[in-house]
């Protein structure tokens, strides 16, 4: 399985993502934002970080990178694309996912473990989990407050596009469990085709017991299992 890890000036989770892909048996390659061509890759991963210093809006300038034209073409053809944190922000800016990520409601940068409920396990990114499972995964962002207009929110809720929500230890969405003010506690969602996932929490930082959690592994094993099933 060949996966592309796209890096931008200011990406800082690119090596974590590379290592996560290796850990589940994939063969990752870094693609610099000025490079072109994603043919031959089985999946494309956009890492977290602070591309272009978050100037203008988080992800707004990275979205104009040459490689993004290829990412958009790749996703439009149904290719699997995973964006984490800044990667999620870039996917929203690129219009591959609906809505936008704005300043956390508490104004503070939030860096801590959060609990996420898996809303759906019938996606290529979550098949290793059970629906309703609660995961412990870290977040680290200042702009993770998911916003969209009412019509869009209704559409993504009705279409079952929400994949992860912030919850408390009982598995319920509450204001206290919501670290950034996101609408409906949305932490991650897929596009209508289900081939593009954006999420603010960092599964690639929850891959080792030594680092406090292995709950992130499922995102990567799910993806590899789905790609293997497609290839066979």
């Amino acid at each position, binding site marked *: 399985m060949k996966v592309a890890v796209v890096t931008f000036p200011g990406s800082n989770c690119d090596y974590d993502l590379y290592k996560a892909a290796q850990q589940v048996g994939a063969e990752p390659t870094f693609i610099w934002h000025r490079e072109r061509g994603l043919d031959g890759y089985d999946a494309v991963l956009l890492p977290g970080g602070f591309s272009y210093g978050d100037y203008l809006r988080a992800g707004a300038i990275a979205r104009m990178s040459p490689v993004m034209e290829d990412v958009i073409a790749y996703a439009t053809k149904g290719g699997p694309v995973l964006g984490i944190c800044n990667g999620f922000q870039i996917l929203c800016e690129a219009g591959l996912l609906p809505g936008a990520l*704005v*300043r956390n*409601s508490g104004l503070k940068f939030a860096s801590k473990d959060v609990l996420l409920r898996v809303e759906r396990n019938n996606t290529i990114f979550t098949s290793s989990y059970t629906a309703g499972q609660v995961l412990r995964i870290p977040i680290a962002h200042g702009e993770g407050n998911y*916003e969209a*207009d009412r019509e869009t929110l209704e559409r993504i809720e009705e279409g079952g596009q929400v994949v992860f929500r912030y919850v408390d230890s009982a598995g319920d969405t509450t204001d206290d469990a919501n670290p950034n003010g996101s609408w409906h506690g949305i932490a991650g969602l897929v596009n209508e085709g289900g081939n593009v996932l954006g999420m603010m929490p960092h599964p690639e930082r929850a891959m080792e017991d030594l680092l406090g959690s292995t709950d992130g592994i499922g995102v990567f094993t799910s993806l590899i299992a789905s790609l293997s099933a497609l290839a066979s």
Partner: protein
Amino acid sequence: MSHFRLEIRVKPRPGLLDPQGKAIHHALNSLGWDGVADVRVGKAIYIDVAAESQQAALEVADAMCRKLLANPVTEDYEVSGISELEGAGA
């Protein structure tokens, strides 16, 4: 070709929570300005651009806003000022 200075204002859309505006609102209240009803924080972007005419410069500004400077999901924009820069033209 003439040169123009554009002032573009980008602000959070009505109804969208603006945490910065809210924090400033609280600060103004606590400094004694009880009459403050609302605070919204936006940004101003100044661009010097060469264009055939003022109308052409405004069209360029609008295209820039739609493509990059504002996110239509969360922000509104307006070109709030335009002036011709003397002596900069060819």
